[in-house]
């Protein structure tokens, strides 16, 4: 028999109040963890993909759409641009690095992106199996693509037009898998990458016409900020546009931010309610227990013991609430990551526990101790003689 055992049995005895407190804590904790983890992962992912890219050149249209499609591969492209014109623009001393991209097809929902090995080097992705593509119609798979699409090295496949439609299959030429990339935590993970010419070969010109040499977008890194001033003008004159990833993504996360704040407040309110619930439940159980508390004191329990007993009850409730909330958040993250994977082929490392969980645990413990503070003081102030005289 010890204080933890007594506290545990008391909580079981007043189970309805305990259950309500635990449930409220569970939902509050799960909500907060879910929000913070999703936000952190998305931010990390966004930042990783945007790293080293100052400017994106593409067809006119929504700049946000251009960024989302060219950098993150989650939206439809704004259109194509002429490769010779683009090459002329980017052959500019102000541009340090230019990565041309040609895309618009998929295999099983995984986007096929034509580019140069510079695209893969940019995200510091290494080949884990096989080799880099060297000839046209050879592809390397991103790590998640390799894991989930069912493709292996040596497999051949046809691409389909668009991003999720498998009706319109280009059966003129087939791709061959020659390599698989390591997980890089970047956009590459969910792509199929080949040479630009391969994408052009899938879309042959009508008979007699010149082959269409087009890019969908070009990722740019500038040498100095002057490029920011001159390049947009030059692009506009040539029927193209440039977009700034950092600005577009800021705008996007600001819009997310409002919804995030609302959800955070909801989760915070639930946690406050759980504080109230622990408080009320302990206080009402004290009424039921005032004689036994007095009797514990006659048996040698000091005021400190009774104080500790009630605090312990708050602590146990908060720890159980945290553990259940954490498990619920894992389940929520699993659902969310499945959604991301099926909708956008994004795979996320949601499940690595970190400092965040420790902070939320600390906050939950503080909630439990705060809620039980007043009841604990009340219990420790029990006047033995007076209480026992009132029976």
């Amino acid at each position: 028999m010890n204080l933890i055992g007594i506290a545990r049995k008391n909580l079981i005895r007043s189970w309805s109040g305990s259950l309500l407190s635990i449930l409220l804590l569970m939902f509050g904790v799960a909500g907060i963890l879910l929000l913070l983890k999703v936000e952190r992962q998305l931010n990390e992912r966004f930042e990783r993909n945007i790293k080293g890219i100052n400017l994106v050149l593409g067809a006119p249209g929504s700049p946000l759409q251009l960024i989302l499609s060219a950098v993150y591969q989650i939206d439809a492209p704004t259109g194509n641009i002429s490769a010779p014109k683009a090459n002329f623009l980017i052959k500019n001393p102000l541009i340090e690095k230019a990565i041309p991209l040609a895309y618009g097809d998929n295999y099983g929902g995984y986007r096929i992106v034509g580019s140069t090995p510079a695209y893969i080097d940019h995200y510091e992705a290494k080949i884990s199996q096989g080799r880099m593509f060297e000839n046209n119609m050879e592809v390397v798979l991103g790590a998640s693509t390799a894991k989930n699409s069912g493709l292996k090295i040596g497999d051949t496949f046809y691409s389909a037009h668009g991003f999720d439609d498998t009706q319109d299959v280009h059966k003129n030429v087939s791709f061959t898998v020659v390599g698989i990339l390591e997980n890089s935590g970047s956009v590459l993970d969910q792509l199929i990458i080949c040479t630009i010419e391969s994408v052009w070969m899938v879309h042959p010109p009508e008979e007699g016409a010149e082959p269409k040499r087009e890019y969908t977008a070009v990722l740019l890194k500038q040498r100095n900020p002057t490029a920011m001033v001159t390049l947009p003008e030059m692009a506009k004159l040539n029927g193209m546009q440039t977009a700034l990833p950092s600005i577009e993504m800021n705008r996007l996360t600001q819009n997310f931010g409002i919804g995030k704040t609302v959800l955070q407040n909801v989760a915070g309110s639930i946690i406050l309610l759980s504080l109230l619930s622990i408080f009320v439940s302990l206080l009402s159980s004290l009424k039921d227990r005032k004689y036994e508390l007095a009797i514990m004191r006659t048996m040698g329990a000091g005021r400190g013991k009774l104080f500790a007993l009630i605090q312990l009850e708050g602590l146990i409730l908060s720890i159980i609430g945290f553990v259940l909330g954490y498990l619920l958040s894992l389940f929520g993250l699993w659902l969310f990551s499945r959604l991301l994977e099926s909708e956008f082929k994004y795979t996320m490392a949601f499940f690595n526990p970190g400092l965040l969980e420790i902070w939320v645990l600390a906050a939950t413990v503080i909630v439990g101790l705060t809620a039980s503070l007043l009841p604990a003081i009340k219990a420790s102030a029990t006047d033995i003689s007076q209480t026992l005289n009132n029976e």
Partner: protein
Amino acid sequence: MHFPDIVCSKGEDLLILGQSGTGKTTLLHLLAGLRKPTKGNISLAGRELSTLSGSRLDKFRGIHVGIVFQTPHFVKSLTVWENLMLPAYFSGTKPDKGRANELLTRLGIDHKKNANPGSLSIGEQQRLGIARALIHKPAVVFADEPTSALDDTNTLAVIQLLKETAADSKSALVIVTHDNRLKTHFQNIIIL
């Protein structure tokens, strides 16, 4: 309230009789160190109670005093057995499981070991209360109106149990009551 000088030596019994309003329970609480007197001294097991305070007094009381209450209260979330283990836990001593078993058997409630004290009959609860007061062989056992709710037969049984078990653990027994029936069972009687 004023009380006369009272002395009860080790292994002795003492009956304090008084009508309601004479401060019986107050006296018992003073003697057991649950309250502090405004004047006068209380000495228990060779120790002046006024020299102790706070958790030291609580510990001292836990080790040297056992109390049988008029209405026995138990920790409701714990079993009969666990309730018997509490005095040792709270006074920081080693629980004597052999003695607990022996007391339960002698008081005829050993089959209720794992029951919730709330499910015991009033008589059984009374006996469990006696067991709990004596489990740690205290220097003094105080009993507050232990028989006021009992009929003659049960009164006799309870008094005998109290006297026997107290004598057994060499504890002094102090009973505070308004129950005149007890007079015949005690030699040392103080009337308030």
